[in-house]
């Protein structure tokens, strides 16, 4: 992988792309969170990622691990709700895996640590109709593609995004047992999970950035 400043530039570009994508999808995420929630997920994510995008100048002085950690703390300090601690806290913890820089190995360790923290914090198993249902297929596919199939990271990540996409589709027909949607019981069936959806959007932008 490239040297630290190239990694940092790539991160910053990815952050900007993610922020733009979240802004574009704000209404959509709000609609998803209206059917089975309290109609704030779009605004929460937009607010958080706008705050992150404003820090791009500060990022110029940081290592990749510090950038990711700062994204995490900024999300915790701005998003609120369930998504704030889950996205932000997990990025903070998982950023430790990137302290030697972003390599193929550390990217797998990061992905695993991120998922672990989301599940540790939110206590959601697979199939609870949450962001975990997008993350598990993505992380499992990424790890397996790199460690067992010796695929290059970009190819592995593209497959991971495809896994996340299937995860998001999978959230539609199942009953929510975690998160606010679980209060709706059976009525949650037939609706796509907002947090899984925003997770997919973020991954898609990271992939698009990496492909350039």
């Amino acid at each position, binding site marked *: 992988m490239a040297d630290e400043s190239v990694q940092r530039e790539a991160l910053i570009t990815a952050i900007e792309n993610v922020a733009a994508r979240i802004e574009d999808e704000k209404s959509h995420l*709000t609609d998803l969170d*209206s*059917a*089975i*929630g*309290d*109609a*704030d997920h779009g*605004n*929460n994510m937009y*607010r958080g990622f706008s705050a992150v995008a404003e820090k791009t100048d500060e990022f110029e002085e940081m290592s990749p691990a510090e950038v990711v950690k700062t994204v995490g703390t900024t999300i*915790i*300090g*701005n*998003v*609120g*709700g*369930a*998504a*704030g*601690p*889950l996205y932000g*806290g997990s990025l903070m913890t998982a950023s430790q895996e990137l302290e030697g820089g972003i390599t193929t190995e550390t990217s797998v360790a990061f992905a695993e640590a991120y998922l672990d923290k989301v599940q540790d*914090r*939110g206590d959601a198993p697979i199939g609870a109709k949450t962001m975990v249902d997008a993350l598990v297929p993505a992380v499992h596919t990424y790890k397996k593609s790199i460690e067992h199939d010796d695929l290059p990271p970009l190819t592995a990540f593209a497959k991971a995004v495809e896994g996340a996409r299937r995860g998001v589709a999978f959230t539609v027909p199942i*009953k929510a*047992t*975690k*998160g*606010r949607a*679980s*209060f*709706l*019981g059976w*009525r949650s069936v037939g609706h796509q999970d907002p947090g899984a959806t925003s997770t997919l959007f973020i991954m898609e932008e990271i992939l698009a950035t990496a492909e350039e």
Partner: protein
Amino acid sequence: MKKLVNDPSDYVDEMLEGMVAAYPDRVRRLDGTKVLVRSDAPVDGKVGVVSGGGSGHEPTHAGYIGDGMLDGAAAGEVFTSPTADELNEMVRACDAGEGVLCVVKNYEGDVMNFDTAAEMAEMEDVEVAQVVVNDDVAVEDSLYTSGRRGVCGTILVHKAVGAKAADGGSLEEVQAVGEKVIDNVRTMGMALTSCITPEKGEETFDLGEDEIELGIGIHGEPGTERTEMMTADEVAEHLTENVLADLDPDDGDDVVSIVNGMGGTPLSELFIVNRKVQEILDDRGLETWDAWVGDYMTSLDMMGCSVTVCRVDDELKELLGAAVDTPALKR
């Protein structure tokens, strides 16, 4: 969307400015945050009692800041849990060295942010305890849900723990009082209409002219069941019977009842509901020691109500009946 607002993204900030402008001697705002605390916080010799959650439930939470109730209240964006860093600032600002009790409603966002805040505060040697309120009976508490929601019964928790803290209770004692109320309080709510959030600008769910939503929470999300329009008596019966079935009080028990408006329902209708609620409580051999009727924990402009019943013993009567001086509740 018709609201008294300016830029919707300034909603919470301007609301807080308006509160501080109304009660300049009672509250102050922690700089750069959406947290309000008692103007004299932290109060020496007393356990701090704090709460918080999304905005849109006014007077919950900041309306309950004052003697005998909350020392601090954190406001998140509308229907969104406040961020952990602000909750941490609130805890630290309300700690006089006796520890701080956080009253948290059972929503994953609230719990996770308060948990993180507690960790942060404890790193600075503040002793933090927590109670998690889950009084809503509409949702089953099982391994297959995220538990029951914390709704209007929370106000009784605030009142009781606030009184215990004002009376010099230790952090453990104050927490125990909170747990006692939680064990003895149950609530169920319903909606005639959804609500409109300032950012979304539309109703969060659609109800037909002849439909109502049973088992609602306070965040504008759909309830557990949509059904046909009911009369006020039928609503009172449905909510009260469900609450009593779960609480299972004994004949002769004393209770506190709350008929709470969701924000858009006129007070006269809440009294019409209360009429039947009191009749049912009486028929069940319960003694209403205190009846509350009004808007205590709302959901913006939603039309509807919730019914809370809390079993009270001598200790809780003393605490719930104790003097309190806040903008929204006084005795």
